């Protein structure tokens, strides 16, 4: 449905070194997919999204939507894509939700009669009916962001681009927003491409994740695939008393990346194990050196850790 090939954006300023915001980005999004775009600040997420919207002209590369190159034909692309670019800043604050929705529907050339039905439906879906006559500036941030999303939906396009859709929302509003996006995909068949810094949002919503850094794609995999790739289990062994020196050397030698510390008079080992068998190897060493274990804590890495490891180039 969407295919990006070798997208490059270079900013040149007189007397300053050129800035490569995008350095040959290639990606694809299939119909009905929810794809997350992740990357640290300045990685090129917003530039990628704005190029897809036709708001920025790339230096080189192709953006194909249903096979049509939208860099050459931006107007065509605009009929295929809707976007929420800055959270709650895409709406008119002095207009009510109803007026905002009606205005953006009018911008699409939708007739007044159709518009009325459509606006009513969206007010209902987004639970804004009670506030339909309040000016947007008096709504909560969560409601404003819901309204911004609803305004982008009046275009009725299949592809939805969301730049930080939950930015600045509290836990409840963020959850509501995620549920809304899920229902848009499940019920309305939307294809969603979203950028976010909130790993929970990405983990919860996306089937696939594209991670970019310094304007390049560094990972393109399913969320499950990434979790599998980084499937290491972290354990903390809390010991009774000191860890003998010989045991310390052996653990360091065999387990490399492990931390041996102290918790008062007792020793503590933090270790990442790549397979279940290694767990027993460690227990065996402790047994051989007569180190009683008081307790063992276990944790699986979360998506945030996976992201950090990829960006820092640990895999």
């Amino acid at each position, binding site marked *: 449905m969407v295919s990006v090939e070798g997208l490059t954006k270079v*900013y040149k300023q007189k007397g300053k070194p050129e800035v490569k915001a995008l350095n040959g980005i290639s990606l694809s999004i299939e119909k009905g997919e929810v794809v997350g775009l992740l990357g640290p600040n300045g990685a090129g997420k917003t530039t990628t999204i704005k190029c897809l919207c036709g708001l920025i002209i790339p230096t080189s590369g192709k953006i194909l939507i249903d096979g049509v190159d939208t860099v050459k034909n931006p107007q065509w692309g605009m009929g295929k894509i809707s976007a929420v670019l800055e959270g709650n800043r895409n709406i008119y604050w002095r207009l009510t939700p109803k007026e905002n929705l009606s205005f953006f529907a009018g911008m699409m050339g939708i007739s007044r009669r159709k518009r009325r039905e459509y606006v009513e439906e969206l007010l209902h879906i987004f639970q804004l009916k009670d506030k339909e006559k309040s000016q947007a500036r008096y709504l909560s941030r969560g409601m404003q962001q819901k309204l911004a999303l609803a305004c982008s939906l009046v275009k009725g396009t299949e592809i939805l681009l969301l730049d930080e859709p939950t930015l600045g929302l509290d836990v409840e509003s963020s959850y509501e927003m995620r549920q809304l996006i899920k229902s848009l995909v499940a019920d309305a068949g939307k294809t969603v491409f979203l950028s976010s810094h909130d790993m929970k949002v990405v983990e919860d919503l996306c089937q696939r994740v594209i991670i970019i850094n310094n304007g390049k794609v560094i990972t393109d995999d399913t969320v499950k695939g990434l979790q599998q790739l980084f499937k290491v289990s972290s354990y903390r062994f809390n010991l009774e008393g000191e860890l003998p020196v010989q045991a310390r050397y052996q653990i360091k030698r065999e387990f490399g990346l492990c931390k041996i510390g102290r918790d008062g008079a007792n020793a503590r080992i933090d270790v990442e194990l790549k397979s279940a068998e290694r767990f027993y190897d460690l227990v065996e060493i402790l047994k051989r050196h007569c180190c009683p274990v008081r307790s063992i804590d276990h944790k699986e890495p979360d998506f945030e850790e996976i992201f950090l490891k990829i960006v820092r180039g640990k895999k």
Partner: protein
Amino acid sequence: MKKLILLKTMFMREWLELKRYPFNLLSGLIALYLIFLVVFVGYRALGAGSPKFGNTLDGIVVGFMMWTFSISAYSTLSWELMNEARMGTLEQLYMTPLGFDWVCIFRVISSFFLNLLFVLPILALMMITTGRYLHIDFLSITPLLTLSLAGVYGIGFVMGGLALVFKQIQAFFQIIQFIFIFLIALPISKQPLFKAFPLALGSNLIQKVMVDKSSILLLSPEDLLILLVNSAFYFWVGFWLFKHFLRVARKKGLLGHY
């Protein structure tokens, strides 16, 4: 049909915003009237007793009306674009599949008609204050005013394009509003070449209708043709430059920045 809906939508929004900012509208009207009072009182103090006092006063009223229209015509689009960028809605407007060019053109058309609501009360107040009641022939004035302002809207498009790229261009506005006074007052009867400037000929022809009680049918066809060509030229050059600046803004990734 879709374009007509877009035009109606632009009117609707313009009207709603006008209703939501009543103080802005009222204070604008009062400020303009006060400026006129200063001009009027100053002229009365200096020109009283002159045999041409009445006629010149009529000219001042018409000139002031043209100036009011012109300031609004050239600044509306750029103010709006800067405002939309600040609110974060400019990118949404740009993304309409009906075309951003049309959004801007319709925005300008709707502002022209809403400006009438703004300027007509000022004109009435000026006539009451001076006691000089001008010849209001709408059938003659409307096409002349539309053509005269088309050129000014062309300048407005250039300013809009500059606002997209450079963002802060307010200082430029102030310079241009004084240039308009000069253009409106150009003595084209003494130097026909002045007809090539925007606004100069149109303003002169409107003076003929409103002050000399003429009609569009009695004006020189040659002058009307020059006005038409002049307005079309400035409008399209302005619009072309606007599109150029829009492309520059998209290339530099500036669309939507504020």
